[in-house]
């Protein structure tokens, strides 16, 4: 049965190494931290990325409203539903699918504004993360501005579930091994990741 793609927002701005999507706050499909998403660039090319930050910006009005101890319900509803402040979802690019072939290299061109961003389905997660040999980890590990430990833990948790459903429960172990190999000369970095992974519930 073909699964319907889940739209999570529209692209607001992009570069080769990442992009920002916008959506409404109460959107039911608001993606979680660490979710794998994709955005079509053209007929042949899609960029894949991981959600690494979700901004809900405040603004002067909200800051002013909170000086009032009690707010009427219509004001809360107005700010929640009407105010044109999107949630900004920051996504780091970690790979691509070109003519149906997955790669952990960056796409050659960035996506364009207002392209729809989709949350990857479990099968897509399995296919992307099992292509190659965890090459996409390098994009995450070399970016010092990311909350690496939490991001990897969240992503691996989601990917673990997808692979479990796809019949490859050993993927998780292989992924952790690969992470350890890549970080074994970086004690603080590796322990940061391991601490985050250890907070995941055991399956």
């Amino acid at each position: 049965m073909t699964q319907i793609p889940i739209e999570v927002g529209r692209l607001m701005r992009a570069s080769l190494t990442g992009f920002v999507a916008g959506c409404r706050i109460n959107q039911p499909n608001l993606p979680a931290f660490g979710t794998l998403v994709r955005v079509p660039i053209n007929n042949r090319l899609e960029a894949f990325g991981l959600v690494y930050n979700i901004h809900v910006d405040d603004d002067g009005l909200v800051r002013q409203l909170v000086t009032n101890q009690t707010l009427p319900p219509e004001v809360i509803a107005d700010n929640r539903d009407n105010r044109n402040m999107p949630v900004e979802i920051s996504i780091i690019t970690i790979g691509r699918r070109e003519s149906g072939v997955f790669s952990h290299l960056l796409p050659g061109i960035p996506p364009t504004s207002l392209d729809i961003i989709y949350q990857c389905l479990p099968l897509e997660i399995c296919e992307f993360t099992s292509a190659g040999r965890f090459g996409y980890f390098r994009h995450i590990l070399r970016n010092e501005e990311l909350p690496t430990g939490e991001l990897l833990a969240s992503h691996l948790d989601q990917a673990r579930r997808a692979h479990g459903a796809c019949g490859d429960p050993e993927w998780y172990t292989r992924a952790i091994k690969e992470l350890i190999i890549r970080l074994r000369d970086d004690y603080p970095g590796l322990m940061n990741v391991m601490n985050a992974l250890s907070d995941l519930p055991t399956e």
Partner: protein
Amino acid sequence: MPINYQQIQAQADQFCNRSMKYHQALNNATDILMDVLMKSGSHLTELHHLVDLKALANKSLRCAIPIQEQISTAYTLPTTFEPLLLIAADGSQINPNRHRQVDFGLINVATICIQPGLDIPPDIESESKLMDDFDQQTDHARLTEDLIALERDILERAALYNRACKYPAPLITISDGPLELFRETSETAWFEKKLAEYKQILGDCRSATILTAGYVDKPQSDLVNRMLRLALEMLPVSNYPLSAEIENIRVSDACLFSGLLTVPGDRSAIFAIQSPWAQHFKDDLQLCFFYLNVGRPQKPGLARVEFPAWCARNPQLLNNLHAAIFRQCEIMGTRPYPYILHRAHELAMVTFDETLQLENLLAGELQARGLDAGVKSNKQSAKDLPGRGRYP
């Protein structure tokens, strides 16, 4: 070149010294006028008659006219009121600018409709109108900022009425600023037409029992003070020497009433407006106002609320208006201003980026039709040059 702060520093001292003197005189004058207010509080008929007399002699007289309520009384916030549907409108405009590539104007009006007390997100709408010099209905050579502003006022009023018609009356519509049209001083046929449209809308609102209000934040008007100065001259209760100092000090009504309206939610008596424009707004449409303390205890903040006379004659409607305005201001906490008006402003605002996008859109459309889209003026191009930067 940066400011010459050394020059300014010396001038700032003088500025402050003059300010101190002024405030002293202002306080004196305020005390005197407050005394007059208190003493003439119940002499409404005499004051009304006095103003009528003065208006006959001076067509350009602008002052307040007491109606029915004692002017020396503070009217407290009603304890019971009906939370009516509120609709606010605000407009934003892009003024024509010959320095741009494409010269055009734009009016963007947004309306927001709130059901107080219900967990329903307000309903919002916006309308945009592109304006150009190609279709002028005025004898002015160019599309001007004032013309666009007047058109905007009309559109705001129309938008309010049109939205209000979709809901059962009674309800309150509100806009920012006075209800009087101040935009154009010269009498032209076009202006007459616009004024007629405006009055028509106000009349339609009256017919549909749609309360029309205007909110003036930090009012600087001295309508009541002018009225009290007349009393100083004429009425027997007045026995204060009219010193030059008082005569030359302009005391705003907000300054005066801040001493009277000390409790948040208090309003002043309702006044009508005597002005050259008053002739255009007669009978039910006569423009009235009250001052309202929207501030906090020990920190009064006065605003002026304008509305047509027919609303003033309906005590229940008036109470609802009084309470609605105050509750809206309460929402904004420490900086009281009607929430609904702020939202309307936010919805209507046209950003700089949007202006650029629209300009590019129009230029593109023109070029697509083989027309010359024009060029930015050299002056504007120079202004748009990027400042100093660093590579990369």
